[in-house]
C-alpha cells in the first residue's frame, strides 16, 4: 500500500448511493410541499387577484357560487362550520386521549399496555368514509331520538366522529411526550413520598406540557383537514351555527363536494382553490406551532433533565 489505497469498493459505492437516495427522500418532502403550494396558488391566483373581496370572503356567510345572476363567495359560514366542528371534536378528544395516554404511559404495564397501544393505533386505521357512514346511518337517528331535534346531521354528530378520529394520533403523541419525561423526575418525586397520581399530575404532566400541547394542536390540524367524515356527518349546510344541533358545512367538505363538477378555470373553481390556500395556510400554521412546542419541550429536558446521562456517556 504505497499509494493511497483506493477504497472505492462495493461497500463504498453502496454507502454513497444510499446517502444520495436518503438525501433525495429527505428533500422530496420540501419539493412536494412547495409544489403543492405552488399548484394550489396558481389555480387560485386568478380569483385571489381579480375577484377576491376580503370583506365578502371573511365576513359574508353567503356561499352561492353557482347563482345565475349574483354569485357570491362568502366563506364565513364555512370557516365557522370547520371551527365549530373542530372545537367540539377537541372537547371530546382531549380528555379522552390524554386519559388514554396517561393510563398507557404511566399506569398500565405489560400485556395490557401493549394491547391498548395496538388497539389505539387500530382506531387510527379506520377509513374516514367508514366514520362518515357511522355518522350518517347510526348517529343521525340516535341524535334525533335522544335529543328530539329535527335532524341529527350537525355539529354534535361530526364533532364526536371527528373527536374519535383525532384521538388515536393525539394519544400516541401525548404518550410519547410523557415517555420523554426523564425517569429521574418520577423517582425524585416518589422518593419524596408522592403517590402515583401525585407524581403524574404534579410532576409528569407539567414537565410534558409542551408535548401535550403539540398533541392537541396536531389533533386540531387533523380536524381542520378531515373531509369525508365531516362531509357526511355535518349536514353540509351553509349556516352560521348557534347550537351544537345546527347543521354546518366545512371548508374541506365544500371543496370535496363541488370541485368534481366545476368547470376547470371558472371563478367557482378558482374560489374553491382559494379555500384550499386558506386551509393550507391554517393547517401549516397549526403544524408549525405544534413543532415549535415539541422542540421547546425537548430543549427543556436536554438542559435540565438529561445532563447527568449525557455526561456519563461523553
Amino acid at each position: 500500500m504505497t499509494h493511497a489505497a483506493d477504497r472505492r469498493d462495493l461497500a463504498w459505492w453502496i454507502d454513497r448511493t444510499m446517502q444520495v437516495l436518503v438525501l433525495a427522500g429527505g428533500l422530496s418532502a420540501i419539493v412536494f410541499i412547495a409544489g403543492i403550494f405552488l399548484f394550489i396558488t396558481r389555480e387560485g391566483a386568478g380569483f385571489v387577484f381579480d375577484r377576491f373581496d376580503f370583506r365578502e370572503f371573511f365576513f359574508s356567510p353567503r356561499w352561492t357560487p353557482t347563482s345565475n345572476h349574483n354569485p357570491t363567495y362568502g366563506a364565513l359560514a364555512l370557516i365557522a362550520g370547520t371551527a365549530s366542528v373542530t372545537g367540539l371534536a377537541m372537547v371530546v378528544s382531549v380528555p379522552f386521549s390524554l386519559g388514554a395516554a396517561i393510563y398507557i404511559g404511566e399506569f398500565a404495564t405489560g400485556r395490557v399496555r401493549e394491547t391498548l397501544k395496538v388497539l389505539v393505533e387500530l382506531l387510527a386505521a379506520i377509513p374516514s368514509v367508514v366514520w362518515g357512514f357511522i355518522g350518517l346511518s347510526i348517529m343521525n337517528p340516535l341524535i334525533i331520538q335522544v335529543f328530539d331535534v329535527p335532524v341529527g346531521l350537525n355539529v354534535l354528530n361530526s364533532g364526536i366522529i371527528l373527536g374519535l378520529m383525532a384521538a388515536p394520533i393525539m394519544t400516541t403523541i401525548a404518550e410519547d411526550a410523557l415517555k420523554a419525561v426523564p425517569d429521574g423526575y418520577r423517582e425524585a418525586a416518589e422518593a419524596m413520598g408522592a403517590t402515583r397520581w401525585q407524581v403524574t399530575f404534579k410532576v409528569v404532566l407539567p414537565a410534558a406540557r409542551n408535548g401535550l400541547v403539540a398533541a392537541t394542536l396536531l389533533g386540531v390540524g387533523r380536524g381542520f383537514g378531515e373531509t369525508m367524515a365531516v362531509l357526511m356527518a355535518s349536514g353540509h349546510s351553509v349556516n352560521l351555527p348557534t347550537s351544537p344541533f345546527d347543521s354546518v358545512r366545512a371548508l374541506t367538505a365544500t371543496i370535496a363536494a363541488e370541485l368534481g363538477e366545476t368547470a376547470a378555470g371558472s371563478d367557482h373553481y378558482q374560489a374553491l382553490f382559494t379555500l384550499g390556500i386558506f386551509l393550507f395556510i391554517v393547517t401549516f400554521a397549526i403544524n408549525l406551532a405544534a413543532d415549535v412546542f415539541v422542540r421547546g419541550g425537548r430543549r427543556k429536558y436536554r438542559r435540565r433533565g438529561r445532563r447527568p446521562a449525557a455526561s456519563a456517556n461523553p
Partner: protein
Amino acid sequence: MINGTVDIANSSRKMKDSEIELARGNGNDPIEFVVGFDALAVYVHPDNPLDQVSLEQLAELYGEGGDVDAWSQLGVEVPGCSSDEIVRVSRQNNSGTYVYFREAVLGERRDFRLGSRDMHGSKDVVDLVENTPCAIGYSGLAYATDHVKMPCVRKGEDGDCVSPSVETAIDGSYPIARPLFMYTAGEPQGAIREYLDWVLSDEGQCIVYEKGYAPRGDVNCS
C-alpha cells in the same frame, strides 16, 4: 368532457354555452344526445301525512326570501317531528339535479335559500329523508324506495295534482321532469357509436324504463 379526459359523458342538465365554448377551446366538440327523461320526485318521511304539494309551496320553501319553514304552514302535523321545523334536503350546488330544480321550481332569477342540507348524491337525499321525520327532499324518481313517501305535485293552487311516475313523465303532465343527456366528444365513432346506438335502441330504452326513468319515445317493453 371539458378537460378532454373522457369520450362520452352523462349529464342531467344541458351543457351551458360557455361550457361548450370551453370544451371547443380544448379541442373537443361535445355532441348532445337525449337518452331519456327523469321525473324529480319530492320525498318525505313515510309517517308524514303530506299528500300533495304545489310548485309555489316548494318555491317558498326552497327559494331565497321564502317564508315556509314549518310543517304547520303546509297544513300538516308530522309525527316524530315535534319541532315542526322543515328540514330542507337539497343537492350540492353544481349537480344537474340542483340546477334543474332551481330552473323548474324557483325560476331563472331566484336562488336557493342557504341552510339546506346539501347532499352529495341522489341516493343520499333519499337515505336522509328516510331517517329523518322532519325532512323533505327532491331526487330522481329512480331512487325511490319503500321507506319514503312521494306526495303528488301540482301547479298553482287549483292545478291537478300529479304523482311522479314514468308514465306522467312521458306524457308531460308531471311538472318537474327533465331530459337526461349523454355527450360525446365529436361525432361518435366505433365502439362509442355502437354503445350509443344500443342505448337509444328499444333494448336500451327498455332498460331505461325498467330502472324508473322515462324512455325518449314510444317503446314496447314487455
